[in-house]
């Protein structure tokens, strides 16, 4: 817990230095929220109540998805740090720390993300409530499940990012691969276009991939698109992916770690 706080503090210091940048980030978050607000409003005047979701719900889904981007943007993940540490060779300073590397990355990333959640997502959501017709969670239970689901979604994204970071051991430069990866996340997570709009086989594919844990499940719970047993199914789906991906991360890291040690010897 202590190391987690130290990373949050560090994120605070970094942001305090570049205050202008902070305001611009808030502006760009608002810009995206504002634009999806308009897109859904216009689409719904053409076809009210489309696909069993009311306009208010759809706007809420879209606006929160954009607010969350500042923490769920894959560019915020640990993979860039890992990649740059490997490229410069300073990964050894991470390895001599008396910390498990995987947990260390998780604490570091979670510290930074929590800080961004408090300083960007929450103010952005507040602006959404005031100006963009954002609705509260469908029910209190949905709100509670949303919080759990969001955390599980974060853990899925973190694991995927971590695995991408592991790729940098093989290829050094992961920038181009990261682009492709980011695109896939953007497509299959249901951030801009919710998965229930996906046609046939594409929808089927999106529904088994882990990406939907990131935006689609938490937000569908929030707006009440998922209720009752479907909420539990969603949370279970996420939990299974978290366990599987965490295990894969540990295995891959164990493999990579031993290889690094051999090279160092």
């Amino acid at each position, binding site marked *: 817990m202590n190391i987690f706080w130290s990373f949050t503090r560090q994120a605070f210091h970094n942001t305090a230095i*570049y205050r*202008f*940048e902070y305001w*611009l*980030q808030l*502006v*760009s978050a608002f*810009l*995206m929220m*504002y*634009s999806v607000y*308009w*897109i859904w409003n*216009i*689409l719904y005047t*053409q*076809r009210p109540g*489309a*696909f069993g979701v009311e306009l208010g719900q759809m706007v809420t889904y879209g606006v929160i998805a954009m607010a969350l981007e500042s923490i769920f943007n894959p560019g915020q993940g640990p993979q860039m740090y890992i990649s740059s540490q490997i490229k410069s060779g300073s990964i050894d300073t991470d390895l001599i720390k008396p910390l498990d590397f995987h947990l260390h990355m998780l604490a570091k990333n979670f510290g930074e993300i929590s800080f961004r959640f408090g300083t960007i997502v929450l103010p952005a959501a507040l602006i959404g409530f005031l100006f963009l017709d954002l609705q509260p969670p469908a029910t209190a239970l949905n709100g509670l499940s949303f919080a759990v689901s969001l955390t599980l979604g974060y853990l899925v994204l973190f694991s995927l990012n971590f695995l991408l970071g592991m790729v940098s051991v093989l290829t050094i*430069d992961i920038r*181009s*691969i990261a*682009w*492709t990866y980011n*695109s*896939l996340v*953007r*497509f299959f997570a249901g951030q*801009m*276009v919710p998965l229930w*709009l*996906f*046609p046939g086989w*594409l929808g089927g594919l999106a529904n088994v991939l882990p990406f939907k844990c990131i935006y689609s499940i938490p937000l569908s719970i929030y707006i009440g698109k998922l209720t009752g047993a479907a909420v539990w199914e969603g949370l279970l789906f996420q939990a299974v992916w978290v366990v599987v991906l965490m295990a894969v991360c540990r295995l891959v890291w164990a493999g990579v770690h031993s290889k690094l040690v051999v090279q160092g010897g």
Partner: protein
Amino acid sequence: MESLRIYLKLIRISMQSRMQYRADFVIGIISVLVLNAVNLGLIGILVSRFNSLHGWTVWDMVFLYSLFVLGHSIYSLFFWHFNQMDDYIIRGTFDQFLVRPVSPFIQFIGREIQYIGFGDVIVGLASFSMAYTHLELHWGVGMWLFFAVVVLSGTVVEMAIRWIVACTAFWTGRSVALTFVMNRFNLLVQQYPIDVFGTWFRVVVTLIPIAFMNYYPSLILLGKTEHGWSWLGLVSPVVALLTLFIAAIVWRLALRRYASSGS
């Protein structure tokens, strides 16, 4: 002419150093293709599910997208290096451009051909020809000429805006965040007709003239003249030159500022 010769020489050198990494080149192009396929795929799903967006069909929007990408592709090939400007300023390595007897501008943009731009060229041409076929457009010579002018104006507009944004680093030290916000505006204008987003958005992207890259000219090229704003499409080249002029002035001020802060 002399500067053109030097520019071409610099470009050849940067190309050669780039081509050392073939694999990087291929992966880069593929990732651009995937990125754009995802963008277009999302727009396609969204708009086809609702038949149209504010009177724009899927193929209208692909056209809008392609027009932006075509203009952007030339910018991205030749002028991408502007995005690196603040790096030089932070590290204090910008001096190298001032001590040689060639225009700093030529030296600076001669640094890099952004090979990823080839991906944009492919995406632009492919999406444009698909949209052109599906919309069953039949342009005469005049329309094609106008189209060519619009694409080049788009390049100039984006290049000038990025140039100005890069120059802000001379005053603030960093232009990353501003670049980031600009990217957001670009992406919105590239993907959606701006009449969707209400008045103030239209005012902003008309003043920062991104909307002249694709939206206003599209109204003319697609015959959407009932929009009332379509005449603005005709002045695209004028707006482009004006923006370029402003950028050149800002550049001059920036250089003077850098020189004076060095002492």
